[in-house]
């Protein structure tokens, strides 16, 4: 027992003689610490997918961070190269399962560019409606999850209520909640169900109410603002250099939206504005997403009011399946159906790059066809990939707690980043 107190050379023992410890004792000494390496993920609730973040910490400050991706790699490109063009659609769903229709339509749009095909107007309207519905679900999940991880469970539940309502409408339209595989080369495979537009109007009204609730719970919430404002900041120059697009880039103050810059389908007919932030921090990314949802609601309403009647897919049996009475009633119909299903669409040899504005930014497709009915190359420019690549730049030197809101608001989607 006595031995344990004889560490002091002068015989000073604070336990027995009651005096204060002399200067320079263990209590005043600088706490020896070394950098600690911790692992976040691959299955961490805050990583939204399967990303492994190797973080080197000095206390609570991040010294170095190395995102390791690939746990969700499914061989998207290799799979697409071995199936027909239409069979690629289910693979594109799984790139981003919260906005599957945007991936479907973006891919189809690129294939149509490669063929040189213009799709019917009604199909273009349906594509706009579907895309904007899925932009809503994607943003609702992102904003809701951000609130959840900042400690507010209620905004998440409001977001989920709106998301589920929209996904019910999506189910009525496409037959699937998440993996829609909707649309075909040359148009859309099924028309809007009867009475669907009224249901969507009701859903949008309710979504607006829920957005007001979420806004009230988050936008002026002290805890939320403290954790998101001035955290995860990136300058516009850096964001451009990394290749950021979408809401994350707009939050830096760059007014860039492919729906305005290169209007595709019928986007130029709708009246909507592009939400632009200022500071490039987590709070601005949140605000941009909130405003984009309001604009999406407005676009869907305008589209439902002005959608014209007419065909929903091109009348060309080399591209679109013939109507069922033709398939069951005529030999030409059977043959065309058989050839399309067995051999696929014979996309002429060539290449093209085309991009659409998906929920998280520019979704680009570089397609190469060798004319044999299957894609020769399907390159996808996932908007989340450059965003995740910039995370070390944003977060190094900041606190570990800033990593969580940053990872939330950049909304990196494992499915598309890891292909």
């Amino acid at each position, binding site marked *: 027992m006595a031995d344990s107190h004889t560490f002091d050379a002068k015989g000073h023992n604070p336990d027995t003689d009651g005096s204060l410890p002399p200067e320079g004792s263990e209590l005043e000494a600088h706490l020896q610490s070394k950098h600690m390496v911790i692992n976040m993920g691959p299955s961490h609730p805050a990583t939204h997918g399967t990303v492994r973040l190797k973080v080197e910490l000095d206390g609570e400050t991040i010294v170095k961070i190395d995102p390791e*991706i*690939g746990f969700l*790699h499914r061989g998207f*490109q*290799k799979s697409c190269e*071995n199936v027909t063009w239409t069979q690629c659609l289910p693979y594109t769903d799984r790139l981003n399962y919260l906005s599957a229709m945007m991936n479907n339509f973006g891919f189809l749009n690129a294939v*149509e*560019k*490669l*063929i*040189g*095909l*213009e799709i019917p107007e009604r199909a273009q309207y349906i594509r706009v409606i579907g895309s904007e519905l899925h932009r809503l679900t994607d943003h609702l999940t992102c904003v809701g999850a951000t609130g959840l991880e900042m400690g507010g469970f209620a905004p998440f539940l409001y977001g989920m209520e709106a998301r589920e309502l929209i996904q019910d409408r999506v189910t009525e339209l496409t037959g699937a909640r998440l993996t829609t595989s909707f649309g075909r080369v040359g148009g859309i495979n099924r028309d809007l169900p009867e009475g669907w537009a009224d249901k969507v109007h009701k859903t949008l009204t309710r979504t607006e109410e829920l957005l007001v609730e979420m806004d009230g719970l988050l936008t002026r919430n002290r805890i939320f603002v403290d954790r998101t404002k001035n955290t995860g900041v990136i300058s516009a120059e*850096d964001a*451009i*250099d*990394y*290749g950021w697009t979408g809401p994350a880039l707009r939050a830096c103050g*760059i007014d*860039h939206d492919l729906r305005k*810059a*290169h209007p595709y389908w019928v986007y130029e007919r709708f009246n909507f504005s592009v939400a632009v932030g200022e500071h490039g921090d987590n709070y601005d990314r949140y605000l941009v997403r909130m405003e984009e949802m309001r604009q999406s609601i407005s676009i869907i309403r305008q589209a439902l009011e002005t959608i014209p009647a007419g065909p929903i897919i091109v*009348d*060309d*049996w*080399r*591209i679109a399946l*013939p109507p069922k009475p033709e398939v069951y009633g005529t030999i*030409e119909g059977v*043959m*065309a159906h058989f*050839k399309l299903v067995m051999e696929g*669409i*014979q*996309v*002429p*040899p*060539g*290449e*093209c*790059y*085309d*991009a659409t504005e998906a929920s998280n930014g*520019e979704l*680009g497709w*570089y397609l*190469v066809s*060798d004319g044999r009915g299957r894609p*020769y*190359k399907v*390159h996808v*420019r996932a908007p989340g*990939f*450059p965003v*995740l*690549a*910039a995370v070390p*730049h944003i977060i190094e030197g900041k606190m570990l707690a800033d990593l969580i809101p940053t990872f939330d608001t950049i909304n990196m989607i494992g499915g598309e980043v*890891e*292909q």
Partner: protein
Amino acid sequence: MTPPFWAPYKAADSSPSVIGSPLSTFALDRVSAHFPEAVVERYVDRAGGAWAVIHPDSLPKVAAFLKNDAELEFKLFGSIDGVDRLHLAESDPRFEVVYFLYSFKRHEHVRLKVRVSEHQPVIPSLATLYRGANWWERLTFDFYGIRFEGHPDLRRILLYDEFQGHPLRKDYALRDRQPLIPERPIKDIFRGPGTSGHS
């Protein structure tokens, strides 16, 4: 139903002008004027996009020109990917690497392409010019085995370090599997029993 469905779809059946006028060639014209020796080939694809095939050695200076020229300012980094031309009609040299950049000033993409042979698949890296190129070059290296000279950290990004070969090369079999943990033989009613490839 207007066109005969049994005939193959020919390129002449549709013209790119259906979609819209051909995209601008302004940027590539400027590149050609400044670096005539760097541009190997120019063409327009089916969707109206203008392409320039760049000599590998000239890529950094062409990219720097596109980024910094006051009239172009292609500052937004798009993406990089490779193409293995093994089964295409024109397959020599074997690999192509495609580059997409975007300019807020010109409001358009620029499409560049570099061709390298199978024996020496080396291209100068753009990672110091565009920080965004870093990960895309790692991806292209991972998928095709194309090396980017001067890249600060060229290692696999999606696949694991123990992986042999490059999966998007056309001579890599679709079902060639390389599990880190040996797979148990599973009776697959569609593809037959057992694993295939490396197991």
